[in-house]
């Protein structure tokens, strides 16, 4: 099978083209260098099946970034039958250098000048035929976003592969990758002969939007307002969807599963329904919010606004060892930690990425919010409630900054902060949909396995041994609660709350449900019972602990898969547990010492 490599600078629409040609869905982002794992797809070209590989975006074939090394490594070790080079037409005056570098390798290649629609609006005209003669490569003008010129480009690619079989071995390429000199002069030469650029860019839209959004005084307030509105939208629109999903799942259980499985022995029935079904439905109920979250975030990401947010917040983030992009990810974490952790892929430097991933799980995510809303309503008056909620958000920020400051020397990053500000773009619905779907699939795949195992485990803990009532102090969970008493008593958490905390390790969404199981009550009766059993100081201590310790198994799984390091995963778990205990201890003992 022939192999075709897709090469180009970051942010030139390479992944969009890949999606269009393959029909699959790679990530499409308006961030420089978004593709980290190699994507490939089988495509039909000139009557044959060929493998199309989407290589990471690179600025320079001889550069030192991880992505640039990946590309070099790939070309030196994999035979390639055709290189499709994708460049941004509007920036051809500087990007052509990459095409020249690649051409010098001697591979059969074609050059696609993408974003023709934008270039046209900006008044840039390129004589493709003249450029093709100068370069000695076929040159095509395309728009991957709208599909213009793509079928023709495929035909040219097929012809090129047919006529010019690759005679360059990977070893030769490896040696050719050593040096280049002539390129700068050649680039100037070709651009001069073939490209007409207006001295002043004709498209002022981006400039005008930036004047407002990056304003020295209004830029930050606008940014915060925009973020607030996005979260409002996600949760306002997501709540009915989530409720609907929960209702559907409850219906499924009561009308199908309960009658169907009632013939089974009660332990198996309990395991299947209270264990596995509840576990899966916990994840499933969150799918609508996750879908919405990704749809909205992919829209923001593709619009080019995230680079602007990074610009606005960088000064502050630099002081705590992070950079502007880290702030954006933290904000995403206030919705859900899992996509925020996945979002750190845009960072190239590993230490910076790890430090960001270490602080994200401290963001007060929507699942914790649900626990807090319930307990605050139970333990405080309606007048006190907003202040308590605000205090918890402040505590979340404080722990994030504390963690970043404490660990910034371990995760020192020397990566310079140089980022391209792409023009504002409106992603097409197709782009948004493909991207959102890809992320959801990824999330479900991983989260389901983890949650099923976790839930089965917790079910077992609260149901064995079988001769005592479920979730009572005689069960394994109860015994663990007693075991942890010496640690948890000093922070005011009794053995019943301790069991809820164990449940909370799987997912915070289960905490309130588990309290219902533990007390054998629900709704108002549960609230009253809790208000009798614990006072507000204990409740606050419990909430602080819930806020800081590991958010859920999905987050842990994501931490591990994204960092590819169990050590890092354990560091995150141990640090957050330790910090949670310490903060709760200081609060609880301090409050008690003050006579509260």
């Amino acid at each position, binding site marked *: 099978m022939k192999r075709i490599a897709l090469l180009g600078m970051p942010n030139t629409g390479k992944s969009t083209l890949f999606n269009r040609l393959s029909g699959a869905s790679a990530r499409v982002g308006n961030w420089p260098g978004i593709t980290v794992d190699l994507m490939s797809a089988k495509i039909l070209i000139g009557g044959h099946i060929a493998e199309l590989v989407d290589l990471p975006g690179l600025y*320079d074939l001889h*550069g030192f*970034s991880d992505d640039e090394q990946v590309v070099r490594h790939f070309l030196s070790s994999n035979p390639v039958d055709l290189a499709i080079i994708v460049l941004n037409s509007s920036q051809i005056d500087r990007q052509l250098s990459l095409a020249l570098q690649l051409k010098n390798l001697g591979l059969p290649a074609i050059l696609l000048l993408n974003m023709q629609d934008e270039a046209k609006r900006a008044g840039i005209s390129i004589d493709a035929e003249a450029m093709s003669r100068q370069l000695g490569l076929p040159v095509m003008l395309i728009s991957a976003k709208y599909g213009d010129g793509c079928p023709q480009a495929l035909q040219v690619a097929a012809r090129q592969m047919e006529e010019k079989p690759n005679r360059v071995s990977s070893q030769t390429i490896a040696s050719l990758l050593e040096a280049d000199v002539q390129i700068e002069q050649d680039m100037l030469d070709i651009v001069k002969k073939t490209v007409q650029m207006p001295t002043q860019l004709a498209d002022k839209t981006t400039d005008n939007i930036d004047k407002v959004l990056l304003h020295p005084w209004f830029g930050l307030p606008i940014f915060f307002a925009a973020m607030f509105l996005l979260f409002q939208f996600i949760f306002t629109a997501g709540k009915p969807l989530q409720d609907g999903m929960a209702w559907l799942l409850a219906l499924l259980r009561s009308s199908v599963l309960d009658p169907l499985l009632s013939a089974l022995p009660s332990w198996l029935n309990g395991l299947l329904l209270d264990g596995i079904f509840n576990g899966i439905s916990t994840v499933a109920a969150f799918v609508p919010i996750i879908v919405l979250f990704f749809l909205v975030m992919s829209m923001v990401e593709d619009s080019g606004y995230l680079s602007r947010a990074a*610009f606005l917040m960088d000064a502050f983030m630099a002081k705590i060892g992070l950079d502007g992009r880290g702030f954006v990810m933290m904000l995403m974490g206030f919705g859900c930690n899992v996509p925020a952790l996945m979002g750190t892929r845009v960072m190239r430097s590993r230490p910076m990425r790890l430090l960001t991933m270490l602080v994200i799980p401290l963001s007060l995510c929507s699942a914790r919010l649900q626990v807090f809303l319930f307990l605050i309503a139970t333990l405080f008056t309606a007048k006190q409630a907003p202040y308590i909620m605000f205090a918890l958000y402040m505590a979340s920020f404080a722990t994030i900054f504390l963690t970043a400051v404490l660990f910034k020397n371990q995760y020192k990053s020397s990566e310079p902060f140089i980022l391209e500000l792409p023009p504002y773009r409106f992603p097409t619905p197709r782009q948004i949909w493909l991207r959102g779907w890809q992320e959801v699939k990824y999330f479900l795949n991983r989260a389901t396995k983890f949650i099923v195992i976790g839930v089965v485990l917790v079910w077992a803990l609260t149901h064995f041994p079988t001769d005592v009532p479920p979730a009572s102090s005689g069960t394994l969970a109860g015994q663990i609660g007693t075991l942890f008493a010496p640690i948890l008593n000093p922070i005011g958490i009794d053995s019943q709350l301790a069991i809820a905390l164990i449940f909370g390790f799987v997912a915070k969404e289960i905490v309130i449900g588990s309290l219902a199981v533990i007390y054998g009550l629900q709704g108002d009766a549960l609230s009253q019972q809790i208000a009798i059993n614990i006072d507000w100081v204990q409740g606050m201590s419990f909430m602080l602990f819930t806020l800081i310790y590991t958010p859920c198994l999905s987050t842990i799984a994501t931490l591990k898969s994204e960092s590819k390091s169990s050590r890092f995963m354990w560091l995150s778990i141990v640090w957050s547990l330790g910090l949670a205990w310490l903060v709760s201890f200081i609060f609880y003992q301090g409050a008690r010492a003050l006579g509260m």
Partner: protein
Amino acid sequence: MTILSNLNPGEHGVIQAIHAEQALHQRLNAMGFRIGKKIELIRRASFNGPLHVRIGATDIILRGVEAQRIQLNAA
């Protein structure tokens, strides 16, 4: 003669030299920072934040530390 980090918003200059180690040099090169190119400072972020510059059709943000390495001819 001046350095990029000393420009005021709206001012421009021509890149005369880039004082950086190889990795940073290449990164800047690929972003369009090349000797002889005209560069304009568009704006600075508040609180001593990054600089927003324009070279040709490309907008780039970079921190002051990196901007100090870029020497300009006053144009």
